[in-house]
């Protein structure tokens, strides 16, 4: 199906046998039902508000009979199975009530009507894809999901995967993927995914959470931070030969295929038929591999480009465009595939970029862009999506979308005979479809791109980065092996680096009161902020075999910008929390309290590393998927952290080296040390642990209370069940001289250069002296 200006002719799209008019009727009905469900939900919110706001019982003593009769009628109205159903909604009490209802499987009328809307959407897609109905296993799955027969749905899905394999099963349900997920989420007992399901079903916004688990995609996207950076790179000779030297839709898509998912983009200048030079930004999709590498086109980048209004991918694209030297006001076409399409659309909706250049066209293939809109109304947008490609539906709207979200866009939503996912997502597959199966769509887009038809007079590849890349010399410095030294402590001499050959480590990150964190730091460092809150970590380790003997410790640290940094520190990146990248030297930890269970380890913490350390008992119990940590000092409990860790995912290859940068003061001198370790690590993004702080006057407990962490749950946990580590001597920091003039605030302009980060100079002196590659 294609749409453009309503008056335009709609070209046929490939070999689909659908009756577009009938499917359109069902989609229109689904849209109307979604609208009606929205009205019902509003009504439910009002009724819940009247019930829970307190006004009715507030004057109970003055007219008790009338008040009770009104309360009773209200309660009946929002719980009547024959009417509004279990309809508590909106406001804090309504939200809790709705979640409770979801757990109990009690539905509201609004949800029932929305369910009918989703079932109609599936029926409409089935008309476009008759194989969905002809396939008995798939039909069984659809029916079970729609009828809320959970076990039967699970069995049908299992049968589908067993029969076809995971890839083909995904291919089979791809056209109705979003609808099935939304149906499941609306009808299951998990209250966390209801909001996302409603957004998908009502077409009101991009799905900001996983509709199965309810885990927030937006939270994941927000971890993708960085100002963006771009560096010119040369194409290798075979690539250069394959890059097209003319401008057309197929040429641009072919170029994207040549550049590949390598973290690079291509900018070309073409001379149009009118002799005017125009420019084309060509952005490939997600770079495979580590979910968070130094490229903005990684998995996190795919989430952030889809869900956020500005992301490292689009910011680095803007920097590439600025470096390329496109004159202000010049005409630009943005072409992208997959996450690259989301990124170019994000760039197009940036008012600053759109006012600097004339964005004439945005063409995206296989991209989730339904909830994006260019800043300039005159920008012409084309979106091409294969109904069997799941990626374009990651924002929640796929083939079954019944909402006319972009009446002014040219939308090509088609099926082809092969439709194997993930093969159908490849840019080469889209290019072939447009060349062979969709000639009219291709001609339509090419007609619009006519000003860009002509010889390419300049081509430049850029490698994109989340942030300014760390110079190689600094990177290499981190790898220099340290010399073994000895240090004297009150408890005897120790050998440095301190070595641990076997240990368990748990790091729990919390957000905490920013003022309290600043107070703890006492002006010696600036706490990194996340949404206006400070980020603190509780580091727990049970060091079973170390050069200091066996000991356990628990420490409270505030994440800080490097000493000598200026301005408001940036939010921590995912990599800063998983300190593995070369940029680990930018964000460090400052321990405010350390509790250890041996005198020697206390002396080393205090005298060698400059931490306020005390002696006590630290009990660490770690089981499968759970942890319990208790700290006791002077016979009194200080704190405990206990609970389940929730789902986890490996954060790096087991052999990868990692480091934690620690800033402290020793004898009044700022020092920096680095802890490096190896061992499998898992990240738990939705931990269920809870921190309990005892009513102790021990500074550790007092600081935790000041930070507002009593009863808090961590936002992220990292666990290494068998860690090897080394921690070298703390080295005095040489800080750069303060700037003569106060620096300007970081520019909001995405194409402007970021302020110079002084952390490299602060880190350099010790970077090569105290850390090693690890054992």
């Amino acid at each position: 199906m294609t749409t453009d200006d309503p008056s335009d002719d709609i070209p046929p799209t490939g070999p689909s046998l659908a009756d577009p008019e009938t499917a359109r009727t069902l989609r229109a009905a689904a849209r109307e039902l979604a609208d009606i469900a929205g009205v019902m939900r509003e009504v439910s919110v009002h009724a819940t508000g009247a019930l829970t706001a307190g006004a009715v019982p507030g004057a109970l003593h003055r007219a008790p009979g009338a008040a009770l009769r009104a309360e009773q009628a209200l309660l009946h109205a929002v719980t009547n199975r024959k009417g509004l159903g279990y309809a508590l909604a909106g406001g804090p009490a309504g939200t809790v009530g709705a979640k409770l209802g979801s757990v109990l499987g009690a539905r509201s009328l609004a949800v029932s009507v929305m369910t009918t809307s989703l079932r109609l959407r599936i029926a409409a897609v089935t008309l476009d894809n008759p194989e969905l109905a002809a396939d008995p296993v798939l039909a069984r799955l659809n029916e079970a999901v729609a009828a809320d027969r959970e076990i039967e749905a699970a069995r049908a899905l299992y049968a589908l995967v067993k029969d076809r394999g995971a890839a083909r099963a995904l291919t089979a349900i791809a056209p109705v993927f979003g609808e099935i997920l939304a149906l499941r989420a609306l009808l299951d007992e998990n209250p966390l995914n209801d909001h996302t399901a409603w957004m998908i079903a009502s077409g009101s916004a991009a799905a900001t959470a996983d509709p199965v688990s309810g885990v927030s995609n937006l939270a994941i996207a927000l971890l993708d931070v960085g100002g963006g950076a771009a560096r010119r790179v040369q194409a290798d000779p075979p690539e250069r030969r394959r890059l097209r030297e003319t401008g057309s839709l197929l040429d641009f898509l072919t170029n994207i295929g040549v550049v590949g998912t390598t973290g690079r983009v291509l900018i070309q200048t073409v001379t149009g038929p009118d002799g005017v030079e125009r420019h084309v930004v060509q952005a490939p999709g997600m770079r495979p591999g580590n979910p968070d590498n130094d490229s903005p086109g990684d998995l996190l980048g795919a989430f952030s480009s889809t869900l956020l209004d500005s992301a490292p991918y689009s910011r680095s694209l803007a920097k590439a465009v600025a470096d390329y030297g496109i004159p202000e006001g010049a005409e630009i076409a943005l072409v992208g595939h997959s996450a690259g399409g989301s990124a170019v659309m994000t760039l197009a909706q940036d008012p600053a970029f759109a006012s600097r250049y004339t964005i004439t066209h945005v063409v995206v293939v296989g991209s989730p862009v339904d909830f994006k809109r260019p800043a300039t109304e005159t920008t012409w947008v084309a979106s091409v999506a294969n109904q069997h490609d799941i990626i374009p539906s990651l924002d929640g709207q796929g083939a079954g979308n019944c909402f006319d979200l972009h009446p002014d866009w040219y939308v090509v939503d088609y099926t082809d005979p092969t439709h194997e996912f993930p093969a159908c997502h490849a840019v080469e597959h889209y290019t072939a479809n447009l060349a062979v199966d969709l000639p009219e769509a291709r001609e339509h887009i090419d007609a619009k791109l006519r000003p860009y038809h002509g010889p390419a007079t300049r081509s430049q590849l850029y490698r994109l980065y989340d942030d300014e890349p760390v110079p190689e010399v600094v990177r290499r410095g981190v790898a220099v092996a340290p010399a073994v030294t000895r240090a004297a402590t009150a408890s005897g001499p120790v050998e440095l680096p301190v070595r641990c050959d076997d240990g368990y480590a748990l790091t729990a990150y919390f957000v905490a009161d920013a003022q309290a964190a600043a107070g703890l730091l006492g002006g010696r460092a600036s706490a990194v902020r996340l949404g206006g809150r400070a980020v603190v970590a509780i580091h727990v380790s049970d060091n079973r075999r170390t050069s200091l003997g066996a000991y356990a410790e628990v420490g409270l640290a505030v994440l800080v910008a490097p000493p000598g940094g200026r301005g408001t520190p940036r939010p921590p990146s995912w990599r800063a929390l998983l300190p593995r990248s070369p940029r680990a030297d930018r964000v460090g930890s400052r321990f405010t309290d350390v509790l250890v269970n041996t005198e020697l380890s206390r002396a080393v913490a205090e005298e060698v590393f400059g931490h306020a350390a005390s002696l006590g008992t630290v009990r660490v119990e770690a089981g499968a998927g759970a942890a319990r940590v208790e700290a006791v000092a002077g016979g009194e409990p200080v704190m405990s952290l206990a609970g389940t860790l929730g789902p986890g995912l490996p954060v790096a290859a087991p052999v990868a080296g990692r480091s934690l940068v620690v800033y402290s003061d020793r004898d009044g001198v700022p020092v920096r040390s680095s802890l490096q370790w190896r061992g499998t690590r898992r990240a738990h993004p939705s931990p269920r642990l809870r921190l309990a702080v005892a009513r102790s006057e021990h500074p550790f407990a007092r600081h935790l209370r000041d930070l507002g962490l009593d009863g808090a749950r961590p936002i992220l946990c990292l666990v290494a069940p068998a860690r090897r580590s080394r921690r070298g001597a703390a080295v005095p920091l040489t800080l750069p001289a303060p700037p003569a003039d106060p620096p300007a605030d970081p520019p909001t302009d995405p194409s402007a250069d970021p302020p110079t980060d002084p952390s490299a100079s602060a880190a350099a002196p010790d970077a090569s002296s105290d850390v090693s590659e690890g054992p």
Partner: protein
Amino acid sequence: MPAHQRVIAAHAEALDADAEALTGCAARLHALAARLRSDAAAPPWLFDTLNAHITACVVASADLAEVATRLHVYADLLGDEEH
């Protein structure tokens, strides 16, 4: 008008309007069912489902109208007490 009475009267009016909105929903569902009845592609399960929604709408509308009436009575009693 005292604060409590004013708030309760506002709730009553809002719920009155909501009862009407639900009546409107029932009418829209009815019209939708009638439109789709002539469409051969409409799935067979649809009409029973729509009828159930229409019935629920009517019941919910009556529930809310009853609530509104009781809230109006309550608000009036509070007003009488003030005078």
